[in-house]
């Protein structure tokens, strides 16, 4: 989970997201209440935040400009359409300039998501994946895929069947007891408001599904390299720098050794949950060789 601390100063939030504490300094105390409400489940004690993010107000950025990103050593400098800033992975600091309070949440979320994508594999044995996660009977199921693959559809179908951690960004972390899923407050910017519930939660990971639209339900277990490739192709940011890509691959290798990865063909009906329960509960077929006497 992300932790934001609101106690250090009136214009400071400290967020705890997936165990990474991030102190966010705001340019105006007036920006605080809306953000505190939005991230209420992720607010934390900011006394020892791992990351410092300084937000500044720059009305000139209202004029949209072309996006670009530049990497120099541990530092990434970026300009998005309506905000700009930098992230320093070594110093664990970032800054973002935002044209107005109305743009604060989207700019902050994109900056923090980028920060976590780069920092988690390098420093926290984790990955921020472009994915939806659903919790059934206390176990977490990750549904990954690029835009349009069906992540928000899965979240919509979950009502009454599963609890959704987030429909867009989920952290997978390698813990001593096994891989676990952690929610983030970074839901899709176009997600239906009625779906959004920003909750801080952590559950053991049961399985990973790579989403594919299909005429009917089908499940195919992926070989390790195919699984890694499928996860990588949902995520471009990590592949921008060799150091981050190497760290990502190291974490991914351990992840796929600990959790099964399937390609899930599905059609958008709630029969999905019955199908998955049936697959999960299906007894394993013994290898015929094992049935023969020694």
């Amino acid at each position, binding site marked *: 989970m992300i932790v934001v601390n609101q106690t250090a100063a009136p214009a400071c939030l400290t967020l705890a997201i997936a165990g990474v504490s991030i102190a966010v300094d705001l340019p105006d105390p007036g920006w605080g209440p809306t953000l505190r409400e939005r991230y209420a489940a992720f607010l934390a004690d900011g006394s020892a935040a791992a990351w410092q993010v300084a937000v500044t107000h720059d009305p000139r950025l209202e004029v949209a400009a072309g996006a670009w990103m530049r990497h120099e050593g541990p530092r990434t400098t970026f300009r998005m359409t309506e905000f700009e800033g930098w992230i320093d992975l070594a110093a664990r600091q970032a800054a973002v300039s935002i044209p107005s309070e109305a743009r604060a949440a989207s700019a902050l979320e994109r900056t923090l998501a980028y920060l976590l994508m780069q920092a988690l594999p390098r420093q926290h044995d984790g990955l921020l994946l472009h994915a939806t996660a659903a919790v059934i009977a206390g176990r977490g199921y990750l549904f990954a895929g690029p835009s349009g693959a069906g992540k928000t559809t899965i979240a919509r179908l979950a009502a009454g069947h599963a609890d959704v951690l987030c429909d867009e960004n989920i952290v997978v972390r390698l813990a001593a007891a096994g891989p676990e899923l952690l929610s983030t407050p970074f839901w899709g910017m176009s997600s239906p408001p009625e779906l959004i519930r920003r909750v801080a939660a952590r559950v053991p990971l049961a399985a990973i599904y790579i989403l594919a639209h299909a005429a009917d339900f089908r499940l195919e277990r992926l*070989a390790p*390299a*195919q699984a890694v490739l499928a996860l990588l*192709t949902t995520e471009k940011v990590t592949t*921008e720098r060799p150091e981050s890509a190497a760290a990502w*691959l190291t974490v991914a290798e351990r992840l*796929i050794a600990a959790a099964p990865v399937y390609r899930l063909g599905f059609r958008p009906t709630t029969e999905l949950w019955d199908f998955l329960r049936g697959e999960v509960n299906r007894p394993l077929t013994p290898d015929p060789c094992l049935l023969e006497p020694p």
Partner: protein
Amino acid sequence: MTQPDLRKPVHNPHTASRVFSGEAVIVSPAENMVRLLNPVGSRIWELADGAHTVEEIAAVLTEEYAIELPMARESAAQFLHDLAGKELIAWA
């Protein structure tokens, strides 16, 4: 008789890769591309460590895949040439 190719291929340091159950996944940030190699290509990729010559890599392929040395030489050289063309390897 063909002269042994004593050049030593080495991974471009601006790539990241890992071999999963005999299949190499290569991330190339400069191209913003991810590649998956077949098992033979993955073995060549593993051996392109800056220590093995093309000739030595061909010899390994001969042993492990039961192919004749001339064909192994040609396959290894062609594959490494392609990887060099994509700037995934350099010559040590």
